[in-house]
Every structure is written in structure tokens, then in C-alpha cells.
């Protein structure tokens, strides 16, 4: 032990004696470790933000949605002028049934009124959506300004709305302070804006779109004003669409039952919506699991690529240590003459290499953190430095030293002392 401490001190002094050479030698390890750290930070960051988005959908939920069934040949061949009546999607009956299922705590529904939203003559990519009052609590969204719907708004079918962040951005000029309280005119109807909603994850719901692009009105108001019927004129053709509900956010009382519940819901819907596939289902928890799996693979791949540069760095170090053994034959011979065992020489060179790679590793960690910070700065990508990645990097640089230091150290120990003393 005592010897090891002295040998570490000795390696340090040898390192200082050849500062530039030591730096150049460990450059491979510095950048190898640096890239390991940076890559792990980036992939951890990517994982985190992707997972956060999925989590924002609610991992305790099953999302069921209505979807226009694929067009079949018959309706296409019908005469051009004929008006088409389309009816699909989730119904009140589905809602009743699902809410009675075991483990289902609550259903929060959304209803897309399918109105065109115009700004002047330009059609905006926004949606007027009726929602249940629980909707706010069921999502990651928060009220940024104003208020959410009250019970009275629902009971009295009030013509009020809460708009998403993007709606405000698209319909109002920047710095407009009178958004709350002002009126929004959609078709023949006027809604008073009572609040602004912000979902920091900009959660997307299937078919309906981003939460920040919604103009929300109470479900009761929506049902009364728009009656589930939507008239759309396409060319000379009228199209009447009837959809009762567009989204069910089915909250399950325990994530443990998610898989089971989602199976029962889809079983039920398959049976009742036999004729057409006019619904879909998303299970955020399942997405999360998949995403985690793919992220882990991604992390492993990235890590391996960075690991290759570490191997290259290690080979560089081995090369230089071998040259150093040759160069220091006289020192080795003198040490043997002064009583060093072969094992002492072996240990000395091994410690020297490990010292070199480990200090390279420490520098590399700093470099990696720096690279990550620069990437975050310029691309906005999230980077996360986990403790385990730093410990891993240190361990790896240590191991690289042992692996690539053993052979040169063995060579040093095997030097014949007389030959080395003769070589002046």
C-alpha cells in the first residue's frame, strides 16, 4: 500500500516532467471520455424530454378517440350532387358503458365542433372544442391568465371560452393586454374569453391536435349550439357529419390495471363498432415503455460509438507507454540494481498508465460537460448529467489504463537489467 502511494506520487512527477507529452498522450482518452459524457448527457436529455411529453398525456389514462373510417368504394361511386350523411365515432352509449367498467375512475370527454375558424378570410388551424369541466385537471395544462370554467358556466350553457396559448398568439397582436374579456366570433356565435391556457408540453391529442391550439368551450354549450351535426360544403356537395364525442380520457384508478382496462375497452368497442373501424386508442403508459426501450437502445449505441474512441485512445496510450519503456530502459535497470522486484517495476508502469488515463478521464469529463453545455446553448437540446455516467466514465478510463497499461508494464518488468544498464 505504502509503495502504491509512492508510485502514484512518482507517476505524477513523471507526468509533470513531460507535460506536453502527457497531455498529447491522454488526448485520446480525454476526447473519448468527453464524447461518452456528452453523448450520455444528450441521450439522457432526449429521453427525459420525450418521456416528459408522454407523461404529460397522463400515464394513468387510456385515450380513446373517434376517427373517420376509411372510405369504401360504394360511397365514392355515389352521384356527385348527393349529400352525404356521415356518422361515426364514440357515442354517449360508449361513454356510459366504459365509465361503468371496473377500475375506471372517470371519463373526461372532448367534442370537436368542426367549425372553421377564420381570421378575416383566412382559415386558421385552430379548433373549437367542447370539453368536460374536469379537463383542466386531467392534463398538464395550466391557466396562464384569467380563469377556468365554473360550474355555473356549464349549468347555464354560457357562451364563454378558454383559449390556448397559440390561439392567443395567432388571433391577437403581440402585447394585446385586453385578451381576457374580449369577444371571439365564430360563425354566428360569440364567445367571451375568460381564460388563457398553457400546456408546457404542447400535448397533442389524436385527431383533435395540440392543446394550445384549442378554443375550449363548456361541453354543454357546445352540444346545444352545434348539436353534434356538422355541415360542410365541399364543392357542390354537402356533407353532414355526426360525431358525438371525439376524445375520451379514461382515467384508471391504478396504473397496474392500465393494460387490463385498455384491453376491455378495445374489446367492447370492437364488438359495438363492428361495421367500421371508427375509433382508435392510445395508451400513454405503453408508449412510455416502448419509448424507454428504444431510448435505451439509442443510449447503448451512442455509448458504444463513444467507447470506440476510448479504445483508440487506449491503443495510443499503449503505444506511447511501449516507447516510454524503451526510452527508460536505463531507469528500469537502475531500479532493478537498487533492488526493485519485477513486480515493483510492473506496478510502477501500470500505475503510471492508469494515472494517465484517469487524469485524462477527469479532464474528459470536464470537456464532455462543456461540449454538452455548448450543444444545449446552440440547439436547445436538453442535456442531463447523471451521476452514474460520471462514475462510469471514471471507471472506464481506469479500466482502459489497466487494459492498455498491462502489456507495456509487463515489457518493462521483463527488461534484462544488464542490457539496459549498458545502453547509455
Amino acid at each position: 500500500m505504502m509503495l502504491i502511494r509512492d508510485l502514484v506520487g512518482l507517476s505524477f512527477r513523471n507526468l509533470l516532467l513531460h507535460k506536453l507529452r502527457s497531455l498529447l498522450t491522454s488526448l485520446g482518452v480525454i476526447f473519448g471520455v468527453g464524447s461518452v459524457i456528452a453523448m450520455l448527457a444528450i441521450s439522457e436529455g432526449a429521453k427525459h424530454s420525450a418521456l416528459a411529453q408522454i407523461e404529460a398525456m397522463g400515464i394513468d389514462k387510456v385515450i380513446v378517440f373517434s376517427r373517420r373510417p376509411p372510405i369504401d368504394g360504394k360511397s365514392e361511386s355515389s352521384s356527385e350532387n348527393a349529400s352525404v350523411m356521415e356518422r361515426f365515432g364514440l357515442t354517449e352509449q360508449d361513454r356510459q358503458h366504459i365509465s361503468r367498467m371496473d377500475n375506471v375512475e372517470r371519463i373526461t370527454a372532448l367534442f370537436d365542433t368542426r367549425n372553421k375558424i377564420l381570421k378575416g378570410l383566412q382559415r386558421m388551424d385552430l379548433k373549437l372544442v367542447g370539453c368536460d369541466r374536469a379537463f383542466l385537471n386531467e392534463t398538464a395544462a395550466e391557466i396562464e391568465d384569467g380563469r377556468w370554467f365554473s360550474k355555473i358556466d356549464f349549468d347555464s350553457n354560457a357562451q364563454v371560452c378558454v383559449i390556448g396559448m397559440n390561439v392567443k398568439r395567432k388571433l391577437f397582436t403581440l402585447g394585446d393586454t385586453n385578451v381576457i374579456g374580449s369577444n371571439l366570433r365564430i360563425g354566428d356565435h360569440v364567445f367571451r374569453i375568460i381564460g388563457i391556457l398553457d400546456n408546457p408540453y404542447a400535448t397533442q391529442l389524436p385527431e383533435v391536435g395540440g392543446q394550445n391550439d384549442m378554443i375550449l368551450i363548456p361541453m354543454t354549450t357546445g352540444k346545444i349550439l352545434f348539436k353534434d351535426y356538422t355541415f360542410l360544403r365541399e364543392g357542390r356537395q354537402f356533407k353532414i357529419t355526426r360525431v358525438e364525442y371525439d376524445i375520451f380520457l379514461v382515467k384508471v384508478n391504478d396504473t397496474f390495471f392500465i393494460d387490463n382496462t385498455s384491453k376491455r375497452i378495445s374489446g367492447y368497442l370492437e364488438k359495438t363498432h363492428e361495421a367500421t373501424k371508427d375509433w382508435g386508442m392510445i395508451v400513454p403508459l405503453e408508449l412510455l415503455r416502448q419509448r424507454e426501450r428504444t431510448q435505451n437502445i439509442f443510449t447503448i449505441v451512442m455509448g458504444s460509438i463513444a467507447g470506440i474512441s476510448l479504445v483508440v485512445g487506449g491503443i495510443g496510450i499503449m503505444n506511447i507507454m511501449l516507447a516510454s519503456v524503451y526510452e527508460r530502459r536505463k531507469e528500469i535497470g537502475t531500479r532493478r540494481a537498487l533492488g526493485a522486484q519485477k513486480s515493483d517495476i510492473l506496478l510502477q508502469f501500470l500505475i503510471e498508465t492508469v494515472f494517465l488515463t484517469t487524469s485524462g478521464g477527469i479532464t474528459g469529463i470536464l470537456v464532455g460537460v462543456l461540449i454538452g453545455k455548448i450543444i444545449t446553448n446552440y440547439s436547445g437540446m436538453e442535456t442531463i448529467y447523471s451521476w452514474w455516467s460520471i462514475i462510469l466514465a471514471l471507471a472506464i478510463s481506469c479500466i482502459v489504463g489497466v487494459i492498455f497499461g498491462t502489456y507495456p508494464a509487463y515489457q518493462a518488468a521483463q527488461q534484462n537489467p544488464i542490457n539496459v544498464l549498458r545502453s547509455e
Partner: protein
Amino acid sequence: MAESQIIVQLKDIRKTYITGDLQVPVLKGINAQVERGEFVGFIGTSGSGKSTLLNILGMLDVPTSGEYLLEDVDVSRLSDVEQATIRNRKIGFIFQSFNLFPALTVEQNIEVPMLYARVPGRVRTKRALELAKRVGLGHRLGHKPTQLSGGECQRIAIARALSNSPAFILADEPTGNLDEKTSNEIMELFHELNREQNVTIVMVTHNPALGPHYDKIIRLRDGRIDDRLFEWEIARQQQLQQQQEAAQ
């Protein structure tokens, strides 16, 4: 004369280097012995095999044939580890080109053999100071070898050789790189060590002028021991005879 205690015994030591097809016999049967406390000089022309013999004495090299007894132990029977331990505890090496470690300070250089003897740090520091003082360089402990003159370097090398209190010092032309004045100082230091601590010293040189320093001279010529005496040896013997006669 005190009881003669033989520390080194060489019996028909031969060494032949083989390079390719060529066999180069360097030592052709050396028989010699060194007593405890003796100051022995190996003198011979360049290439006569002095360093080869010294390396065999230091167990850095093995003879092609013959027997080498160190304190009555046949060293060829010792393992690598045992040989290293003997080099460490019993033998002190001194080289012509000093062979100090440039990365280390004077103090650390002196401590190296103690390091391999696993001597604890505090004891090492104390002993290093003691030894540096003994060779007259107590004030240079923190310096690097490159900051010292040749003579000073050799003194440090001597201090290093002494650090584990060896019984036996092997020096290969220790004054070969030094001027005459410094050489004499270094030789004087060896004499003092030999007298004070009863260290056995075997020193190699090709400089016959150093001859009078030694108690005993082993002359190598063409791989064999040359029994002819130098003029000063004859003179010294005559002197001794006269003293004995006078005493009677």
C-alpha cells in the same frame, strides 16, 4: 589481522557472449575472493571484462559457468525475488554515470532503495537527511539532479547506495566522469566509509593511478587474472617488510 571472513568467492567464473554464430569469451575462468571490510579494486584495460564481472557480482548477469558464493550462498540457486532482495538489502550499486532519477529530488533519489525495502515514509525522510549530511550535501535535499555538479551527483548516488546499510558496495568506474580533484574527494569518501562502517567495497577502474587507494587489487587482462604486480605494490610490500624488520 582479524579473522578473515570471506564475503565473496568466485570459482572458475566464465562468461561467453554469443552473438549469432560468434562466440565471444569475455571471462575465461576467474578465481578470486573478497574479505569482509576489504577495499578491492578491479583494474584492467577497456574491454577486459571488468563490468561483466561486476554485473555478475551484483547478480544482474549470470556466468556461463562457474560458481559464485555470496556469504557462502550459491547465488545461482536463488530465485528472482531473493536476488532482488539481496541487491536491495546487502548490495549498494554505484555507476559511472550516476544514474540518478531526473524526475525525483535528491531526497527522493536517496529514498528509492528504502522504498523497495518498504521502509515507512518518516523513517525514510530521516535517513535520507542523515545520509545527505554524511556525503556533505545536507542542504541540497530539495534540489533536482540536473541542478547538481557531477561530483555532487556521485555523492548523492553514494548516499543512495548506502540507504539500506549494505554490507557490500559495487562501484563501476565511479570517478570515470569526474575531474582529478573531484575524483580524489570521492575516493576519499569511499575510504572513510570503508574505515568507519567497515563496508566492503569492490570498485572497477581502468585507471592504474587509482591503484594505491585499494587494499587489494585484482587485475584483469584478456579475461583472466594477471598476477604480476605493479611497481608501487612491490614498493609497498618492501615497505611493510622493512617495518616488520624494524619492529623486530
